[in-house]
């Protein structure tokens, strides 16, 4: 099996949805070059291309960024297609082609852990429809009823006559058939799945480990020039001017260009020459009033929100005010969660070539259609004159989806140099300074107890930034000013609903929006909400003198799947038995992205309290269906890399209106030696809803460790990251 190889990839697309006569050959990297006869490579339908040698190409609209989604999506198609897995490869249909074909591949958005859970039905239908057409073609050829045929690994057989034919031999005939009626397509019972649920190896691994994989940052086109850019480091500021003459004589420099009203770019023969010149370029900025903002001033604003009279209600039961007023005892605590950056290994980049008749963009993107839309907007050309070619991402984590700023920049630069391909690659510093950051949030929690030490109520007051108010104000408007996404993991219903039922509950949000642009950081708002509620549940258990697991269970009777994963991790880690000497345990659970997740960990802390070793993490996930258990295990392990790095090391601070952390030396990630042993428990309990994998588990990493830290030291840590308190992961 081979993954897409950009250099020699030949993408053949039939001109019609079903069985078109002529195919367009899209020869990357230069877009449409030739038209050729279709009969050599028949497209059975939008999802499936079968070549005469029986090799099968599965088209996948979602983007691969290391999460393994293209492998899982191909498994879904192949399950119904019944072809030979060893002959399968995948390719990305272009967003322009999707538009031309009335969005036959539907959404390209690769975020929200949605790759598989929102498309499993239609991609399986695509596979099933193709199988039906192939079998019909064989039946037509043999003049037998199709229901007398069977298929196994791409070979169709007629038992009565002993005839056999492979998919590749009937593909051309199948491509000419009318696709079956949607209602005639019956998907397999999950019990009979042969490919779904198997730990298929991920596509593309060999290319990645051998360095053959071409990332956006590596892309080279004939005649290409290199650009790098600096946007006003104070968000909202403008570019006043620059003295190009000071750098135009520098080696390799070709152009110094204004890009929009807030950025300047240098174009040179090599990227390094562009970077050296940009560093040397005298530029003048109008920083605006935001230059006065600092982390301290933001913290003050949020702090005031903790007790503000006005707040948006996200989840409510009973009467929390009466519960608190009538309580025998109340406890409260304030938690805080910082700005964090996605910081993918590959900085933002896009390569564009513009002429007045055509604009093409090559880009690592979490949403090819959003990149296409950005290309339309920046180029000013109509959709038939634009195309976007997706490249696998060197990390995305939410930065490369909803925000296509780098695509627009690349096109705006290329537009000033018609005919010349321009690769815009941000410096690491630019990538750190121009993030779309995990929003900053504080939270005040109050719990009330009666005289028998029963918890009677919980008030969780969030104060901090709304992502949607900035990114999708229309949703906030529709909700009467509230950001429903702020309540992820503690919502009253839906894919991020709370896993407890309390007699009295109020979860509300005092929205405070600093000028720092927020974004969807892997897991989004579950990260802070899990820390807040899951650590405070431990505080409440402690105040009640009860075991944290037993205490939680009292409120989970109506949340059987939350309870299922929590019980699973408790059992595996041996919660009811003493921990090994010197080790301490903590746990946490949450529902997010329609999956149920829990973690239990074992840590040790040195005598100073400053060195934490995480020895072992047990993580349970109930996504309903486990398409590829090996990928899920890796996603779970990777979630702890992300979640523990965030907990211990990662914070973006604001000084003079800009982000201070400009590279990895001040924005660290954990290393292999710090990685705990991760034991995954995958609980595929079925049901009508499919849950996501890529994000949910991240959020339980931090509270599980923080709760274990309390067990070890008796000290509550309520502020992330722990480095600010002198605590390091060893």
């Amino acid at each position, binding site marked *: 099996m081979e993954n897409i190889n950009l250099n020699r990839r030949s993408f053949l697309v039939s001109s019609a949805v079903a069985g078109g006569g002529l195919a367009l050959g899209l020869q990357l990297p230069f877009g449409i070059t030739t038209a050729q006869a279709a009969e050599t490579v028949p497209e059975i339908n939008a999802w499936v291309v079968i070549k005469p040698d029986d090799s099968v190409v599965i088209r996948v609209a979602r983007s691969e960024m290391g999460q393994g989604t293209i492998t899982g999506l191909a498994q879904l198609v192949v399950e119904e297609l019944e072809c030979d897995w060893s002959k399968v490869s995948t390719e990305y249909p272009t967003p322009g082609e999707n538009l031309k074909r009335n969005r036959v591949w539907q*959404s390209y958005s690769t975020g929200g852990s949605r790759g598989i859970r929102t498309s499993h039905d239609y991609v399986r239908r695509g596979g099933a429809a193709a199988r039906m057409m192939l079998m019909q073609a064989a039946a037509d050829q043999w003049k037998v009823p199709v229901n007398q045929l069977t298929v196994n690994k791409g070979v169709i057989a007629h038992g009565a006559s002993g005839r056999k034919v492979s998919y590749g031999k009937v593909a051309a005939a199948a491509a000419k058939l009318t696709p079956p009626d949607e209602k005639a397509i019956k998907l397999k019972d999950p019990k009979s799945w042969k490919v779904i649920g198997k730990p298929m190896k991920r596509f593309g691994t060999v290319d990645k480990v051998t360095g053959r994989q071409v990332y956006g940052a590596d892309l080279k086109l004939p005649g290409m020039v290199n650009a790098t850019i600096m946007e006003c480091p104070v968000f909202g500021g403008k570019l006043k001017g620059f003295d190009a003459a000071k750098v135009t004589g520098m080696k390799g420099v070709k152009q110094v260009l204004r890009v929009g009203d807030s950025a300047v770019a240098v174009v040179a023969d090599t990227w390094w020459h562009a970077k050296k010149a940009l560093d040397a370029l005298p530029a003048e900025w109008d920083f605006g009033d935001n230059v006065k903002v600092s982390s301290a001033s933001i913290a003050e604003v949020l702090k005031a929100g903790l007790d503000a009279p006005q707040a948006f209600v996200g989840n409510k039961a009973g009467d929390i005010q009466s519960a608190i007023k009538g309580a025998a005892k109340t406890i409260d605590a304030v938690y805080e969660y910082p700005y964090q950056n996605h910081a993918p290994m590959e900085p933002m980049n896009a390569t564009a070539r513009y002429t007045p008749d055509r604009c093409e963009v090559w880009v690592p993107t979490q949403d090819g259609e959003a990149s296409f839309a950005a290309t339309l907007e920046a180029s000013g050309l109509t959709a038939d004159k634009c195309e976007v070619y997706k490249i696998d991402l060197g990390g995305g984590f939410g930065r490369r989806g909803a925000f296509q700023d780098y695509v627009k920049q690349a096109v705006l630069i290329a537009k000033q140099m018609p005919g010349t391909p321009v690769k815009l690659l941000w410096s690491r510093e630019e990538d750190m300074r121009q993030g779309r950051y995990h929003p900053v949030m504080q939270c005040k929690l109050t719990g009330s107890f009666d005289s028998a030490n029963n918890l009677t109520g919980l008030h969780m007051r969030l104060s901090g930034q709304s992502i949607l108010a900035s990114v999708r104000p229309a949703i906030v408007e529709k909700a009467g000013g509230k950001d429903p996404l702020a309540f992820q993991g503690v919502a009253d219903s839906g894919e*991020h609903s709370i896993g407890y039922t309390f007699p009295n509950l109020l979860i509300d949000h005092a929205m405070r929006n600093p000028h720092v642009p927020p974004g969807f950081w892997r897991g989004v708002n579950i990260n802070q909400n899990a820390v807040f509620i899951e650590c405070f549940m431990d505080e409440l258990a402690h105040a009640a003198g009860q075991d944290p697991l037993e205490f939680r269970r009292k409120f989970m009777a109506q949340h059987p799947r939350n309870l299922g994963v929590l019980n699973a991790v408790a059992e595996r880690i041996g919660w009811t038995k003493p921990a090994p000497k010197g080790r301490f345990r903590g746990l946490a659970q949450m529902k997010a992205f329609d999956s149920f997740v829990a973690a239990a960990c074992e840590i040790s802390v040195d005598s100073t309290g400053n060195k934490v070793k995480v020895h072992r993490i047990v993580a349970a996930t109930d996504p309903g269906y486990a398409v590829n258990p090996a990928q899920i295990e890796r996603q779970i392990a990777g979630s702890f890399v992300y979640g523990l790095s965030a907990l211990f090391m990662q914070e973006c601070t604001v000084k003079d209106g800009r982000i201070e952390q400009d590279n990895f030396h001040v924005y660290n990630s954990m290393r292999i030696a710090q990685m705990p042993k991760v034991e995954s428990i995958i609980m595929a309990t079925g049901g009508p809803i499919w849950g996501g994998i890529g994000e949910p588990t991240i959020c339980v990493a931090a509270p599980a460790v923080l709760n274990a830290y309390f067990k070890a030291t008796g000290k509550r840590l309520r502020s992330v990251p722990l480095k600010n308190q002198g605590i390091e992961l060893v």
Partner: protein
Amino acid sequence: MLVLPALATPEALQAALAKITGGANVRRGRVKLQLPPLVENGNSVEFSVTVDSPMTSTDYVKAIHVFTEKNPQPYVINAYLGPHAGRARITTRTRLADSQTVHAVAELSDGSFWSDSVSVVVTLSACIGDLV
């Protein structure tokens, strides 16, 4: 009434439209609504409406109206024109709350109404899930 695509059309849109037309027939044609088929986030989307009209004192466009199906306020803009306008064309920006069809209606000096419609996909590339 305006011939709309086979979509559930909110009553608010129909009501806003009826207010303009007074129930008169709206024909398709003569109007060209230019709007990208895909937009990145919908927060600020440029569009233009051009009407095929000589813009003389006896034959001109009186007004151009733009409606959306899924915005909180369906009536986006009414632009009043006259023979002095010279060209029957407007360009502006709007926010689009979601993927939807946008309708442009032109009211001509002879009292007739003409229209064009464009379906727009707002790519919603984020971890937003069931909120939209």
